[in-house]
């Protein structure tokens, strides 16, 4: 099937660019951050684009992954790569604990997930837990710091994420998730176990954020709770996804490339304008272009992956 090939082509091109660009423009941190957002946006996409749940507290999984990875290195003395996997597992465990939130819908879910992420943040940052999480004093992974290795692992995590979205775009499971998003009652009468499918999508999206958080911790190696539980991480990932178009593979890639680019042009020099622009963008998108930029192409009859 040519459509599967074109999807695979997108995947290969994105990964190849991520490997080659740092050789041409020596700013590895910029490209690393770009990959972090590419993966996080796809994680939001899996949940929101395929089930309709908007996770404003998505950063909770990211932070949990970062701390899971760090503690696996510091307490269990795992090598970095297995520790990143441990970060992913930690996020999945948090996802299981928070799975009852899926009983809520719409704004209630968004707010509850936001509150949950803040609860995790305050637990991790609590001075009484200094012996475990180092509380507010932050983490140092200087012993395993290895930016070129962590960069490569991030490329791998991004590849995994894009492959997961491609699978959902092209598989029957993705079709079933879309059916649930369109109408959960009808889906149930069609024999779909709505609760199980939603929980699986939720855990998949938690796993992605956990892995990304784990590699992020490894890459920056010194960080504070506020660094990895920063709400603007959630918001950026959501805006990128909405801007590009949910439920597609290319939409979030497009959203991250354009808006993260804009951020690095305007946001760094004049952060206050940047916040204004992002705020306005969210409002305008939700009102006038709920399908994102990808829907503009779709309207012209171009099939967006």
């Amino acid at each position: 099937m040519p459509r599967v090939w074109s999807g695979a082509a997108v995947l290969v091109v994105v990964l190849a660019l991520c490997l080659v660009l740092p050789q041409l423009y020596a700013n590895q941190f910029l490209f690393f951050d770009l990959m972090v957002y590419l993966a996080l946006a796809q994680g939001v996409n899996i949940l929101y684009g395929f089930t309709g749940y908007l996770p404003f507290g998505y950063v909770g999984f990211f932070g949990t992954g970062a701390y899971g990875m760090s503690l696996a290195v510091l307490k269990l003395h795992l090598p970095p790569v297995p520790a990143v996997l441990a970060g992913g597992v930690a996020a999945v465990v948090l996802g299981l604990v928070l799975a009852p939130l899926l009983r809520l819908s719409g704004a209630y879910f968004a707010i509850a997930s936001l509150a949950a992420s803040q609860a995790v943040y305050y637990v991790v940052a609590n001075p009484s837990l200094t012996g475990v999480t180092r509380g507010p004093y932050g983490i140092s992974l200087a012993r395993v710091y290895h930016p070129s290795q962590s960069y490569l692992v991030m490329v791998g995590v991004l590849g995994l994420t894009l492959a997961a979205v491609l699978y959902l775009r092209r598989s029957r499971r993705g079709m079933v998730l879309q059916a649930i998003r369109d109408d959960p009652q009808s889906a149930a009468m069609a024999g779909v176990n709505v609760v199980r499918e939603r929980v699986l999508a939720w855990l998949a999206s938690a796993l992605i954020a956990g892995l990304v958080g784990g590699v992020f911790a490894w890459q920056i190696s010194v960080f504070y709770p506020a660094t990895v539980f920063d709400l603007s991480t959630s918001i950026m990932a959501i805006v990128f996804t909405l801007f590009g178009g949910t439920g597609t593979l290319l939409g979030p890639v497009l959203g991250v490339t354009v808006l993260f680019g804009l951020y690095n042009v305007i946001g760094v020099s004049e952060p206050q304008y940047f916040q204004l622009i992002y705020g306005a963008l969210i409002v305008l998108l939700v009102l006038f272009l709920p399908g994102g930029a990808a829907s503009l192409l779709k309207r012209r009859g171009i099939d967006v992956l």
Partner: protein
Amino acid sequence: MSCEPILRVRDLVKRFGGFRALDGVDLDLNPGEVVGLVGPNGSGKTTLINVVSGIYRADAGSIRLGEREIGKLPPHRVAALGLNRTFQVPKPFRSLTVRQNLEVAWRHRRRPGPGVREALEFVDLASLAEREAGTLNTAQQKLLDLGRALVAAPQVLLVDELGAGLGPSELELVADRLRRVAEAGTALLVVEHLMGFLGRLTRRVVVLNAGAQIFAGDLAAAAADRQVVEVFLGEGH
């Protein structure tokens, strides 16, 4: 055909806060039988369908499908066991094509039944198979809803106002299809305000008022029943 009922509802109660939407409903459906369920707005018809299909959980009473008690099962389990429904306001998967709508149900079916193509032809949507379901008109969406339910090969089909809002030729088509479904052995419970439409399907009706059955029997006898007339038209008629 045996007269062991395929669906047996006993003393069904559903409360919303202090309001008893269903107040002890009994109902039997035999295989291949069509029963009309009528009653004024708010009498509990749709609530009954929602409870029997597992969308709402009953507060008391029992619902048996064949030998199985299904009153506490989630809707996808109820569907797998052979009870399905259509919705008063059709609920297609709007972003999927007509064909994919039925494929979702076909993939999860647990009982041998019609294929997707066969079901599409049966509900007269084969020519629209590749259209996005959100672009269909209401009548077509209702037929799609019916097709989605039929792919699951139900033993019992609950039909919630399928006729409302349809034109004469569409009504004819729907009535014919429902008759054929019943002739194939499926038991049908048909909620309907259009008495002419109902009369083409069955003589047997159950009348609900305020969550309780006030009449069960022949359609013509219902129209002559004093209590039924009062409920529909008010006192003094």
